[in-house]
């Protein structure tokens, strides 16, 4: 059990042992607990796509909408429009939101809808037993592409910067405390918040070791998240394919802009 008792529904957790989703869920639950002074629990609404990641809404005892594949951000936008006091947080997959639902992701960012999107980026369609996704590297030999993907990965950080997201971060499910802080900032940020979470999938793409070796924190190098140019350069340091580079985690960019809910 990766959440404290009060936040746990009691549903059987069916993630694989050591799955990165545990770390991600802990970080979120921890963030919610720490935020609960400012944001009452009933103001959270968590949403999810379909995939291993999606199961998180069954486990956490908060308002939730277990959406369909790729659509959570659209639903979250509707929720926020209908009741601006709520805090919608979408838990989505890399297949889910970089492939099937990429249009909703881009437009949520473009609109600066005041929602948070947390991507369980395991770089695999895992619940469907391991096909390549838009962030799978060339070395990923999935069931639909046994010789590796015939296309290069997307860089979701850069894509979100380009689409107009006002809070753009990358986290690592292996660093729960660091991720917790990102989640808190994302939720508190007024406007569209995006976190791509590097989430090892121990069955189809076990990346713990790789990330442990390659990840570094933007805070540690004095990155200024208010500087778009810097953010963009940092975003480009890793293209989700190379293996011989350092991977920055932390907040790439943060700015203020009127939200969609204010403008509609």
């Amino acid at each position: 059990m990766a959440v404290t008792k009060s936040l746990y529904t009691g549903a059987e957790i069916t993630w694989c042992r050591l799955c990165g989703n545990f770390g991600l869920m802990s970080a979120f639950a921890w963030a919610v607990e720490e935020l609960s002074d400012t944001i009452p629990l009933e103001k959270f609404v968590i949403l999810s796509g379909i995939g291993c990641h999606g199961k998180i809404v069954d486990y956490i005892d908060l308002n939730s909408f277990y959406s369909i594949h790729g659509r959570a951000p659209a639903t979250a936008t509707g929720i926020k429009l209908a009741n601006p006091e709520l805090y919608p947080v979408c838990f989505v997959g890399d297949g889910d939101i970089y492939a099937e639902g990429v249009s909703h992701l881009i437009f949520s960012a473009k609109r600066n809808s005041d929602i948070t999107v947390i991507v369980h980026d395991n770089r695999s369609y895992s619940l469907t037993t391991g096909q390549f996704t838009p962030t799978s590297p060339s070395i990923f030999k999935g069931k639909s592409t046994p010789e590796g993907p015939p296309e290069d990965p997307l860089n979701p950080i850069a894509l979100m910067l380009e689409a107009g997201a006002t809070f753009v971060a990358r986290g690592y499910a292996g660093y729960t405390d660091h991720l917790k802080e990102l989640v808190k900032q994302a939720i508190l940020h007024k406007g569209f918040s995006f976190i791509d979470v590097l989430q090892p999938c121990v069955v189809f793409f076990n990346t713990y070791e790789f990330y442990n070796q390659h990840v570094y924190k933007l805070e540690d190098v004095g990155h200024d998240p208010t500087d778009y140019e810097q953010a963009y350069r940092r975003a480009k340091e890793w293209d989700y394919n190379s293996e011989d580079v350092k991977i920055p985690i932390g907040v790439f960019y943060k700015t203020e802009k009127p939200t969609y809910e204010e403008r509609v």
Partner: protein
Amino acid sequence: MEKTIIIGGKAGAGIKEAGRMLAGVLANLGYHVFGYVDYPSLIRGGHNFVTLRFSEEPVNSVDRKADIIVATDGRSIRAHEEDAKEGTVWLINEKEQKEGAVKVPFKEVAPGFFKSSSVLGAVLKLLGIPLEEGLPFILSLPQREKNERIYREAYNSVDSMFEVKRAGERKGEIVTGNESVALGAVDGGLDFYIAYPMTPASPVLHYLAKRKSEFGIKVVHPENEIGVINMAVGVAYAGKRSMVGTSGGGFALMTETLSLIGMSETPIVIYEAQRAGPSTGVPTYTAQADLLFVTFAGHGDFPRVVVAPGTPEEAYLLMRDSLNIAWRYQVPVLILGDKHLGESYFLADIKREKVVEEPKLWKGNGEYRRYEITEDGISPLAFPGQEGIVVKGTSYEHDERGITVEDAKLVKRMQDKRLKKGETLREYILSREDAVVVGGNESSKKVIVTWGSTWGTALDVAKELGFKVVRPLFLEPFPADKLREEIGTAELVVSLECSASGQFERLLNMHGIKSHRNIRKYDGRPFFRDELAEMLGEV
């Protein structure tokens, strides 16, 4: 006095406006009037026309053949040659030639309104209607002075050939089906109208967007139809009334989410205005060929309502009801309209009244269960944000709390709950007085069965040809017994529809109702009165 008038001209030349203003003048004079609007898919040029029929008696359709043809350009003359009959009076642009035609200086100042002013002036004079009757319309146009000058000039350039006198009190307003849908939604408590542009549903979007402050609603135009419907789901989950509008192709994109709506028991209203398909088809023309698609769309089994208004009054009332039904039963309600209902000009007497029914709300204490199993299958609603409770909606099969289940017994249990809710819903729909409506010669043994907007033409020919007309307002749940009752011991049952494959007939068959003949039209045009009379004459 009954006359059919065609007004034709280029897109962008104000043809629709001219037709609508003329309909307004005739309505003010106490006439019944119906206007058919025909336009191709382009913005400027080409050929648009409006056909108006007016009479002291109710009119719900137009004839193909016109008494008066107003051709504001040369193309309109050629386009309507075959719509003329003996004695047809032609008003043509002064620059064109046609034997016996009256020439009018239709002003060429594009775009739009100036030409509509000259059309109105010329036609009113021709009909012998006083100049003052047109003025209020002209004066509400932009650039009123210029328009008034043009109006007067055209009025004075023509001689009167008819004497259209006042025909009593004004019977209603000129409205379109789309406007009625929009007003019905507002009066049913709409909070959010969410839509992506698509003919012929877009006018609802435009109408509501323009008046959103007045109506106290939000209007949202997202990135695509999938975004639309999923946003609407979010709004409803959070407790606000949402509705979407689209046509067949856009609806197709929503069908995955329709199934989610069924599973998550989210109250959503979908307005589907049909146009001529398949695919892009003939996008500005009409059809009734999405019937079976809409009735059975979405994977898996879940209850839904499909309702098809045939008049603007029904569009208003059923739309208003739809929001209440969606929320009472937590189901998708699909309003199936079409271009003919949506964009034609009707004379309607809509009595507006806000009717927003409170749904079954959770008033309990303790743990809230979104999918509580109840006797009628309807679980009390609560919304996120309420202290102490947790509201879990889901696309997966689930237990009462909304948590995923896969166990056979639990799966069946929740399916049974939804079946039960479907039964409760069915009882309600079938018990409605208006589940089936009838008209025409009600004691006749010859019965036309039809649906949706085809009602208008059916009604208009029924009387003269001695038919009874029967029409289900609800297509799902289907009021088969009521329909059978109304058909009674008819000797001739004719089903009538705008579908090449006879979709309505097949739906009737599914419910054990057989027609002796099926009349189908599928060229994008509605049935015209004279045309249908002929077709029925042959039966």
